[in-house]
């Protein structure tokens, strides 16, 4: 494993111009993804997880802008790269799958055809072999009876099958990094487990890396090597999975863990995190966006910028007074 | 009410086009009300010696085949076209909104019946149906109004019905029901007034379309008879002179007609923006 990370995100900030003001969706995000590792990004809805992935792929809504930072992927800075260079890697070296798989697929196009579109675009498969290659891809994602499923429309497949088709499309060109944006949201619990296992197996088998985005900390712990915790557009903690759970250093992480049902034996023990995410449209947001909800908040927290600092070699926290 | 005007003002400031439309609308209203007083000549007075004169300082819009001043005729025609359009739309809106609201709120057999009626009207190309109605009932202005009203009915029925069905589940309606208000009272006092804002957009757009419709019918010889000045019939009369180069006879009434329709469409769009803002805040 080389020391240079596969993806290096530095001081990455994104804002959206909306009718109601500028939304500071992401601020100074720093994150590395190494080779052959699965990094999780965990946070509440609205924490900016999806914005980060869409911004990296450069397929953000036109109202969104990357205002600062770099994201170096295989020597190419995704932020400043030209569209031609991005088109070379998008869907090929760097791919993404989404939540609600049935609506993420083209409803009036057969899934086999959608798969063939990707194969045609990114691989050197010749026309005659497209169909068999597509069937191989479907088998690889463990879809039974691929011959028949090829000619099915998304509406005729289950949510789990649709997600597997999307995974097949994403992995068709053997990318080096897969971004999975809440791939199990919208699926029932049993299917969730199957999909997560599939992703882990395929990522490992293909010696790839992956970014696994979810709001479910428990789910992330099942497959991620490292986990980054996000809150209101900030990364507040990054650590190896085990260490994150055994010694969380950020108050928000501690509360997230306490809110997980597995850790409690009784409903009354379930911790709720007070308050709501701050309004990201405000002109002056405090340096620590968790401060309004933090039980250990003191005045010093509101001064000066708040960097993400290393507390030991592999553990970073963005907190003045880590736990 | 005050808040409404405040928002109206805001929208007008933001949207110059809507302001322009309002100005135009005011101008047309003036012409409609004071037409005969504003016209420089008697719209019916013929002066065959001066027939088919090109626009000049004496006759800004030129004269027609009978020597009548076209500007005067165009100005006076505003009233008739506006009356036709307004009456037709008022009838459509009045009957259609009540029918639709009742259908949407109560559902059941009345809903089905109303739906059938609207669908049957919509099964015809609307202008063709208007022609058929006027042909059947008799060729006069009253029937033009009636025909235009009938073909516009489905729009109001459907809009009112959709809004009423949504309101049916609203909390304040439930509250009124619990307070003991009878269904008719609820419909009249609570449901109906809340339908009005979105209907305003439809009314404005409809007025434009009603004028076009009425002019179209007069163009083919239905409704208004000469020598009464009306934009559509003036364009029809002018049509024969286009081929011989006397363009002003048809152009000016047509252009003013276009302007009036354009004005109502812009107003409708502006009102729609206004409604959007209201709904969002």
């Amino acid at each position, binding site marked *: 494993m080389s020391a240079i990370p596969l993806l290096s995100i530095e001081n990455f900030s994104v804002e959206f111009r909306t009718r109601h003001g500028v939304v500071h969706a992401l601020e100074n995000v720093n994150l590395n993804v190494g080779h052959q590792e699965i990094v999780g990004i965990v946070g509440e809805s609205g924490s900016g997880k999806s914005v980060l992935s869409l911004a990296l792929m450069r*397929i953000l809504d036109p109202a969104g802008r990357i205002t600062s930072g770099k994201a170096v992927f295989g020597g190419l800075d995704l932020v400043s790269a030209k569209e031609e260079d991005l088109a070379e*890697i998008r869907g090929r070296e760097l*791919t993404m799958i*989404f939540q609600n798989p049935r609506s993420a697929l083209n*409803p009036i196009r057969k899934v086999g055809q959608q798969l063939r579109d990707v194969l045609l675009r990114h691989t050197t498969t010749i026309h005659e072999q497209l169909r068999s290659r597509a069937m191989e891809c479907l088998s690889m994602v463990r879809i039974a009876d691929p011959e028949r499923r090829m000619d099915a*429309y998304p509406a005729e497949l289950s949510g789990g099958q649709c997600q597997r088709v999307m995974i097949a499309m994403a992995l068709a060109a053997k990318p080096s990094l897969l971004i999975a944006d809440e791939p199990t949201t919208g699926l029932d619990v049993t299917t969730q487990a199957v999909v997560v296992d599939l992703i882990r197996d395929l990522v490992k088998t293909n010696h790839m890396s992956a970014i696994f985005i979810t709001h479910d900390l428990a789910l992330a712990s099942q497959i991620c090597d490292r986990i980054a915790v996000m809150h209101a557009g900030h990364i507040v903690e990054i650590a190896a999975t085990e260490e994150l759970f055994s010694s969380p250093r950020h108050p928000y992480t501690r509360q997230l863990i306490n809110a997980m049902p597995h850790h409690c034996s009784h409903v009354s023990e379930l911790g709720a995190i007070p308050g709501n995410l701050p309004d990201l449209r405000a002109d002056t947001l405090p340096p620590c966006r968790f401060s309004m909800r933090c039980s250990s908040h003191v005045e010093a927290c509101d001064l000066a910028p708040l960097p993400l600092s290393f507390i030991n070699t592999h553990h970073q926290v963005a907190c003045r007074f880590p736990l | 009410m005050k808040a409404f005007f405040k928002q109206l003002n805001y929208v007008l400031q933001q949207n110059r086009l809507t302001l322009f439309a309002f100005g135009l609308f005011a101008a047309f209203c003036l012409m409609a009300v004071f037409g005969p007083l504003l016209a420089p000549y008697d719209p019916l007075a013929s002066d065959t010696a001066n027939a088919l004169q090109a626009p000049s300082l004496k006759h800004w819009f030129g004269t027609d085949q009978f020597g009548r001043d076209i500007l005067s005729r165009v100005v006076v025609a505003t009233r008739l076209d506006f009356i036709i359009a307004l009456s037709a739309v008022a009838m459509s809106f009045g009957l259609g909104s009540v029918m639709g609201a009742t259908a949407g709120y109560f559902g059941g057999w009345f809903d089905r019946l109303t739906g059938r009626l609207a*669908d*049957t009207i919509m099964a015809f*190309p609307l202008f063709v149906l208007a022609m058929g109605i006027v042909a059947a009932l008799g060729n006069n202005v009253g029937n033009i109004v009636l025909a235009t009203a009938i073909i516009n009915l489905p729009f109001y029925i459907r809009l009112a019905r959709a809004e009423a069905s949504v309101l049916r589940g609203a909390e304040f309606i439930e509250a009124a029901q619990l307070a003991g208000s009878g269904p008719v009272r609820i419909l009249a006092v609570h449901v109906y007034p809340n339908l009005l804002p979105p209907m305003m957009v439809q009314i404005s757009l409809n007025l434009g379309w009603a004028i076009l419709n009425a002019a179209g019918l007069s163009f083919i010889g239905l409704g208004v008879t000469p020598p009464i000045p009306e934009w559509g019939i003036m364009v029809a009369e002018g*049509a024969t002179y286009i081929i011989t180069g006397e363009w002003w006879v048809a152009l000016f009434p047509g252009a003013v007609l276009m302007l009036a329709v354009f004005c109502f469409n812009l107003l409708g769009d502006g009102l729609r923006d206004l409604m959007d803002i209201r709904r969002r805040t």
Partner: protein
Amino acid sequence: MILLFLKRLAQAIPSLIGVVVVTFILTRALPGDPAAYFAGAAATKEAVEEIRKKLGLDQSMPKQFLDYIVNLAQGDWGTSLTTGQSVAHEVMTRLPASLELTLAGLLLATVVAIPLGVAAATRRDTWVDHLARIIATTGVSLPVFFTGLLFVYLFYFILGWAPAPMGRLDVYLSAPKAITGFYLIDSLLTGEGAVFMASLKQLLLPALTIALFVLAPITRMTRAAMLGALSSDFVRTARAMGLSDTTVVYRYALRNAMLPILTTLGMVFSFLLGANVLVEKVFAWPGIGSYAIESLVASDYAPVQGFVLTMAVLYVFLNLVLDILYSLLDPRVRIQS
């Protein structure tokens, strides 16, 4: 698939029934004595009575309705007072002229409107977008008979590019052998190049007028549908999968956008058929529209009713075609049924 077609056909039946009922009411809703209307203004009292018996106007309403339907089915749509010809025959003879005009106009409009709408949606806030929006807003205000006249003035009188607006063909040429009734198609089939060119020249200006009239709504619809499709989840996925812009815009977005476009096209057809009538008058086009107008002016009512019935049936049929096209394009319709 056949089942779907039959199902759609069955769904069109209530509309057809409604149309027949309404046209029946229109024939009997004539104020005063319907028999007098059909006999004509110059008829004697005996003639009126004769007509009354002949048309069964002395029977009960239900019987009259039954007779009406039977007559329609048998092709007896009455007789024109002015020409003495059977209405059904006149309508059938003149129908191709109207169809050729309407379809030509629709084709012209679609060829411009859809690319324009697509371009407006993919190049937001550029001049193309603004042009499309201006067309969409002003286009709906244009009275079609007025634009027709303007075109005649500009292209015939001033520029001399277009021929005189006097019908389908130059007076010196004779119509091609009637195979479809469409001069363009028939002249090509019989190899009469000169007739083809001449028909095309006569067709151009009226077709352009109709095209301009429906350009606005179709452009607006296409733009809106494309904007919707381009911001959908599956287009985002397609982009993330790195598919080319062309594939994303045309194979993914546009094909999906065709669904809402097809749905709203039905309303456009209503305006289209109405516009047809007005354009036929401006250009002296010998279709069923001008047939109806001429008859109206002469207080000859049977042709008008035949015209209304034909247009309505045509409209129901066009909507049926749209419905079927929609079902073919959207597999979810088949899956859900």
